[in-house]
């Protein structure tokens, strides 16, 4: 088995109201100096060893991320 991580983030030009809400809350909580927060999704997949990179890329592009509004990165990590 291999461990695969897929990180999905809203594209820079797409409004991220959740990230903005978090950023706006930080000064109220006493944390100054954070100018921007973007909120995304982090997936951890356990996959069989024979699942190739092309298949992983397809899973990310067609299902885990929506390419209209999101960017994504797929990487294999040590289990």
């Amino acid at each position, binding site marked *: 088995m291999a461990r695969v991580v897929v990180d999905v983030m*809203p594209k820079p*030009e*797409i*409004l991220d*109201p*959740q990230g903005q*809400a978090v950023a706006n809350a930080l000064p109220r909580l006493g944390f100054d100096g954070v100018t921007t927060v973007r909120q995304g999704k982090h997936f951890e997949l356990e996959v069989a060893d024979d699942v190739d990179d092309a298949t992983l890329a397809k899973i990310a592009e067609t*299902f*885990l991320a*929506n390419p*209209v*509004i999101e960017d994504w990165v797929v990487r294999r990590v040590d289990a």
Partner: protein
Amino acid sequence: MKVGVITFPGTLDDVDAARAVKYAGGEAVSLWHADHDLKGVDAVIVPGGFSYGDYLRCGAIARFAPVMQEVVEAANKGMPVLGICNGFQILCEAHLLPGALIRNHKLHFVCRDQWLKVENNETAWTTRYDQGAEILVPLKSGEGGYQADAETLKQLEGEGRVVFRYVGDNPNGSRNGIAGITSANGRVVGLMPHPEHAIDALTGPTDDGLGMFLSLLDAVVSA
């Protein structure tokens, strides 16, 4: 005329959509998400709700439901399809319509009666309206912000494919105040507000939504 109404796990508005079809004089046919069969319907409505719990993204899982494979195939042959709210999100995820819907710009779930301007009365679902007419129907959604890249927006606007636009304050941060769009051939329409909840003044704010279902009847009968 038979109009299919799909039910996914988590769909809420299938019964109201079927009721709207009957009010317009059509026969509503229930379609189940796991079916590979459209049961000979002339058109399909993908109703609102929270298909598959809206996990991952709204509509992202429903897009892969067996019945949606059939809907995409039929739509590509010209069958009229209407996606309302979650149905609009599903049609975008299925690439029957361009763009995507994201969390409302103020993060709040919006639930109110909403004025819409009819920007295109030549689709299969809008011929009963006058061009430029304003209609009042309910809007109830947390992820109704319509997004598309600049090129897609330019194309939609240039080809008259914006079907409905919000009147007054933009309720959810949609680009260009877009409430609903159509496919290039005018057969597939998606919108966030709910015409099926406004077909009788007894149970809705108006009966302004009924025009969409009557329009479909005209489109199918004349085809």
